[in-house]
């Protein structure tokens, strides 16, 4: 993955992002397990004549959800270690993913607009998510300290304006 990384100043997202990832996974797993329990109850799990397909599907879902939850500390570590970003004069580069890892180059002259979002969990930890939109897709820095988020948004928008003013492609 070094081929696109010949730039400097790679920055990590704040360490509290690890707690956010863990908390999100716990909430997600809890919701999934409650959902499974509700579906089981509605479908008459306690009845003797329950459909035969219920057992294997439930087992698969529970194994996947619990497995996902148990491996979350490892996933979080890998994801946090790899989730970095680099903002230089001409481009924003994002590295994300825990198993399938991706590196995305976003030339700043392709940026359409930037927005920030702060859900309840991120707000609790004083973090903000920044999303950079191009004409066709969007790319997210999952968490930054709110002040850093404001600063990075300002830097990107200023640079984009400079580039627009200079013309070019």
């Amino acid at each position, binding site marked *: 993955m070094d081929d696109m990384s010949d730039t400097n100043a790679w920055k990590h997202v704040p360490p509290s992002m690890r707690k956010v990832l863990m908390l999100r996974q716990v909430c997600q797993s809890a919701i999934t397990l409650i959902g499974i329990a509700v579906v089981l109850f509605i479908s008459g799990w306690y009845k003797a004549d329950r459909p035969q397909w219920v057992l294997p599907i439930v087992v698969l879902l529970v194994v996947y959800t619990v497995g996902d939850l148990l491996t979350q500390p490892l996933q979080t570590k890998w994801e946090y270690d790899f989730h970095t970003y680099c903002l230089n004069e001409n481009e924003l580069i994002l590295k994300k993913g825990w198993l399938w890892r991706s590196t995305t180059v976003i030339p700043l002259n392709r940026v359409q*607009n930037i927005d920030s979002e702060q859900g309840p969990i991120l707000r609790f930890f004083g973090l903000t998510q920044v999303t950079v939109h191009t004409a066709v897709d969007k790319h997210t820095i999952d968490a930054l300290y709110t002040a850093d988020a404001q600063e990075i948004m300002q830097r990107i928008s200023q640079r984009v304006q400079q580039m627009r003013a200079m013309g070019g*492609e």
Partner: protein
Amino acid sequence: MSSNNQMAVQQHWQRLHWIALITLLIRGVKQLYALIGIIVLQAINTFDKQTTISKLVLLILGIITVSFWIFQALSAWITTQYSVDANGISYRSGFFNKKHVFIPFEQIHVIASSQSWYCKPFSVLTASISVAGDDKTSIQLLAISEQTYQQLEQSYHEHSAKHKQSHTDTATENSELLSSQHSLSNSLEYNKLSTIGKSNTNTEEVTVIDTNTPVREDKNAITGGTVVGNSTATIISTGNNATLPTYPSNVPSYKNNAYSSQIAGYRAKISDIIVFALTDVRWLASVMVLYGFYSEYNDKVPRSIHNWANTQVDAAMHAGWIIISLLVFAVLLIVAIASVILTLFRFANFSVTRNGNNIVISRGILSVRTVSIPVEHIQSVSIRTTLLRRCLGLCSVQLGTSATQGVGDDQVGNGLEVIPVIARSRVFNTLQLILPEIEINDVPVRYTARGLYRYYATVPVVSTIVVSAGSAVAIWYWDLSAWLMILPIFAGIWWLAVRLLSAYSEGYALYGKDRICVHGTSVFTLYELYTSRMRVETLTQSAPPWWGSKAISRVEMQIFVKHDISSVTLRAMHNSDVYALSQWLRESVYF
């Protein structure tokens, strides 16, 4: 936090007019109508049969729904604020999930307004500010005063004018740097020439067609250009370093072609349309659809007809293989004829012409439908072929545009079909004639995945083995028919074939000043996508850790195309190719 405070000081946030609350409440009703309807219907239908507890539950549900409806509208109104400054529009909203959007004036694609009847007395309207290509980031200001809207529009137009001026200035400066000696005798002629190509000669003749002269109809795709009319203009270039678009050396020059306000580029012949219909595999799928339709509604068919049909089929089945084969052949023939007739209607009088700065597609027998696409809206061109058409040396051409064009029948799949079917040997000359700006040529392609077949085959093979094993267990456990094993195996073979075709076909070519051609597949359709660097928005390299040691990655490029192919994936390539592509993309910011 200092920057935060600074931003807060600079911006004057304004809240929407209170009439926005009415709009939000109306929208809330539209969103919740299904839920409200269910509760009301349930309450009415079963009122007498319900116990007190059920009625209480319904009442609580009703109160929660109404409270949610009012809270949603109120919170949206309270938290939504906007600010217009010298650079653009800021917008923030959200109670739990806060959202902050800033759109610079230069990025605004469209500003539109609408006014509901209840907003008129207050001189308030709804403004929609959209950015190109991305609907999700568009802003809608539900109720702002007409005066604010006018100011907004004025600022936008001022910025647009300034932006265009700065671009012109930059282009002029670059032009002066590159070619200080270059001059043209006539600006009008310069514009015409600039859409054609680089001038390497001191004197160049361009035949200009008198638009009043009837165009000679060339029934075939034109390979050499159609010269119509007799007025001639001479363009004199005093230097060899003209700053007009350059082309790769192996691109056949079309500078001697007639370029005019109207060029007949392609006209579909009857034989073309028939070949298109017969090589369109979708007509085979229609047989399945017909059968499915019959299976679904056979109980609606009168019993006598149903019995008669069954008797005939049974009789045919017992008559031997020849009769069965003839029967199948007859069914296929009927469907093929139906497909040809429908396609003939669809592409009757189909023609593509270049008219000034527009590509004009027209078709139809009784009523002629015409779609005019400004060339500046064309973002990409894709040449596609199915395996069947490839064997016959045929292909079709689609355009990717930046805005909605040619909706309805003119769109095939996701793209805008400009040439339904054409011989591959003719396609490049035809496209160079009608779309010289896109610089389409049969460039040599670097096939990036040949030799990396295992990266394409591993997932389908492993998945097929796992699913087949699971299916075998399920068949044994539930005592199902062993024939069901065919399904995962067939799906696996299909998937593997698709992946291997991708591995054989995927590749790219960087050519010209800023052009890229990407070869890829979509199931069993092969495509060649031609676009420019500016249309490639982002490049993503990805790989699992175990690919890293082999220096192999997957690459995905997002392309600014509203229709047609908007994302290109090359599933496995060497990192040296990734580097070449990323460097090529990065060059766009150095000017």
